[in-house]
């Protein structure tokens, strides 16, 4: 595709802006499918993803361990920029990946932890238990994933932690309206979306 000659670009110039249009350079990769074409690329990809699922537990172990190590570094050296950045990154990766790996409750707890790191005005003043409960909850959810009824417990745990974290964030940001607005704004993504 990249070797095809690109069509000319048309530019319309206005007082405050230009509108630049080019014939669709990717049009050639589109083709009309026949009625009898039963190929389903999405189903194929979902099947391939399911084929990877045997590795998800190991991946989640790695992600949860990374977060625990990042928190251990914070406990040892305090919230310097690097330690804080690594802890946020580790939590943020779990927030983004865990639901895909079959751990939606871990993703919700990690989201709550990200919000604390992002919106607390002074991380040194955040009660240590708040961090500990989040980090330990993620470890527990990952560790006990296959146990009977663990999904219900994990979901309830994530909801309660989020409530406690939000109460804290609302209180400490009562004079910071821009943070308060972000904290109270609904997420665009449902929390338990698989």
């Amino acid at each position, binding site marked *: 595709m990249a070797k095809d000659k690109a069509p000319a670009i*048309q530019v319309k*110039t206005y007082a405050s802006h230009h509108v630049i249009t080019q014939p669709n*350079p990717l049009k050639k990769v589109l083709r009309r499918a026949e009625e009898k074409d039963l190929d389903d690329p*999405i189903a194929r990809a979902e099947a391939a993803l399911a084929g990877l699922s045997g590795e998800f537990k190991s991946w989640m172990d790695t992600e949860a361990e990374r977060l625990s190590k990042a928190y251990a570094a914070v406990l040892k050296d305090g919230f310097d920029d690097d330690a804080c950045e690594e802890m946020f*990154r580790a939590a943020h990766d779990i927030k983004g990946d865990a639901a*895909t790996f079959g751990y939606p409750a871990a*993703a919700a707890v990690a989201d709550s932890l990200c919000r604390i790191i992002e919106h607390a005005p002074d991380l040194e003043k955040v009660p240590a238990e708040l961090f500990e409960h989040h980090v330990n909850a993620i470890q527990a959810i990952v560790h006990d994933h296959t146990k009977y009824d663990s999904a219900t417990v994990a979901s309830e745990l994530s909801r309660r932690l989020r409530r406690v974290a939000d109460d804290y964030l609302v209180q400490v940001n009562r004079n910071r309206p821009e943070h308060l607005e972000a904290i109270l704004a609904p997420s*665009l993504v449902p929390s338990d979306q698989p």
Partner: protein
Amino acid sequence: MYRIDFNKLRFLVCDDNPHMRRILRTLLHSFGAREVNEAEDGATALEMYTHFSPDIVITDWAMPIFDGLELAQMIRQPEAKGNPYAPIIMLTGHSEKRRVTVARDAGVTEFLAKPISAKGLYQRILNVVANPRPFIKTKTYFGPDRRRNTNTAYIGPERRIGGEAEIFQQPSLLDKARSAV
């Protein structure tokens, strides 16, 4: 119904998390893509972007060295050496509305909030392939038209001003970029 010939598309995937890169690679190959280049940070991605001239970029937001937002801003330089028009799909754990707005203002074409799904990714790719938007260049912005819908009931201030002044053809930047590789 339309299908995409994925085997004719070049992808550049940028994510610092190896597990997410594996997921993306698996999904794209399952769709039929053959050329999927991967980078684990924004700086490497920018270098690969210039070198490989991908048709579509899929990038995470939070990454070391420089992040996906900065990568999008660097790609969307009208005078840049590479192709500034390639579709950029921002795949990220950030799901707040203000983040979507920031990504949009950096020139991102589509925003896909994690958790990723095969359907979500396919739909974003189909959209950038089948429904490309014109690009807008102002003093402060260069990227896909941020107005996806024409709202005739809009009554707020009009930021775009002036009648049509001139229309002209210019050599394709994409052509120039690709001939330079």
